[in-house]
C-alpha cells in the first residue's frame, strides 16, 4: 500500500499536446508516472489544467494533502507576468508546507529555440528543476522524491 501521495500538476496546453517528433502524449506520461509510483510505493494524483487560476487553487488548497509536488508549468514559466505571479504567490502562500517541490519540463527550456525562456519557480524555497528528459523528467522527479521522503522518514 502506498503511504505517500504525490501531486503532479500540468499546465496549459499539455492535454492537447501532440509532439511532432513522436514524443509521449500527456496520457502516456500519466501512465508512466502511475507505473513508476506503483513501483516506488507512491500514490500519484495527476492533474492538468489550462487555467492558471485552477493550478494556483490546486497548489493552495490541495498541496498540504500530499507529500510532494511536481509541476510542469509549461508556458507560465515565461518571464514575469501576472499569471506567473499567481503561481509564485500560490507556492509562497503554501510554503509552510515543508515538502519536496520539483519543476519539470519535457524539453530543455534553455535551448535557443525554446519558447519557454525562464524557469517559473524562482521563489525562495528548495525547488528543484529537471528539464529535457521527456517523460523521464517526471520519472526522475519521482525517483528523487521517493529518496527524499525515505531519508526524511529515517532522519
Amino acid at each position, binding site marked *: 500500500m502506498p503511504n505517500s501521495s504525490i501531486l503532479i500538476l500540468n499546465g496549459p496546453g499539455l492535454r492537447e499536446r501532440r509532439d511532432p517528433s513522436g514524443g509521449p502524449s500527456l496520457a502516456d506520461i500519466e501512465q508512466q508516472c502511475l507505473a513508476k509510483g506503483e513501483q516506488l510505493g507512491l500514490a500519484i494524483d495527476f492533474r492538468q489544467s489550462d487555467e492558471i487560476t485552477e493550478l494556483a487553487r490546486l497548489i493552495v488548497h490541495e498541496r498540504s494533502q500530499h507529500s510532494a509536488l511536481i509541476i510542469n508549468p509549461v508556458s507560465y514559466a515565461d518571464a514575469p507576468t501576472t499569471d506567473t505571479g499567481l503561481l509564485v504567490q500560490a507556492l509562497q502562500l503554501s510554503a509552510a508546507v515543508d515538502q519536496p517541490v520539483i519543476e519539470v519540463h519535457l524539453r*530543455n527550456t*534553455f535551448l535557443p529555440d525554446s519558447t519557454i525562456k525562464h524557469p517559473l519557480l524562482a521563489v525562495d524555497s528548495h525547488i*528543484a*528543476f*529537471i528539464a529535457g528528459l521527456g517523460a523521464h523528467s517526471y520519472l526522475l522527479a519521482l*525517483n*528523487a522524491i521517493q529518496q527524499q521522503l525515505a531519508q526524511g522518514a529515517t532522519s
Partner: protein
Amino acid sequence: MNVYVINGPNLNLLGTREPEIYGYDTLADIEKRCQALGRKHGLDVAFLQSNHEGTLVDWIQQAMGSVAAIVLNAGAYTHTSVAIHDALRAYTGYKIELHISNPHLREPFRHLSYVSPASDAVVAGLGVAGYELAIGILPEVLENFQH
C-alpha cells in the same frame, strides 16, 4: 557503454565547503556510488574533477566518439565559460547539465548558464543525489537518443 561525470572548480571541496548548501558527502563518496550504480546498469563511469577550465574542455573533447554521455557539473564555469559551451556543442553524445543546488534560486550571477543551451537536459537542486539519479536514468534515455 562509457559515461563521463565531469566536475568543475571547487567540487573537490565537497563535504567541507558550505555543507548547508552542498551537503556532507565528499566527491569521493559520490564517485564510489556512481561507479557502483553504473556497473549495475552496464555503464563504465569515469568520474573526473578539475579546477581548470582548459582541462574540462580537454575531457569533453576526449569524450568525442568513445563516450555515450556526459554528466557535467561545471561549477562556477557554468556561468562564465564560452569555451565549455563550444566544446559541448562539438560533442555529439548525450549531455546532462547537473547542479547540486538550483542556481536559479541563488545569486543573480548564477542565473545565466552557458552550459544549458549546449546540453540535452538540465537537472538541478536534487542535492548530491542528483548524480546517481542522473546516471540511473541514462540507460533508458540513451535508448531513445539519437543526434
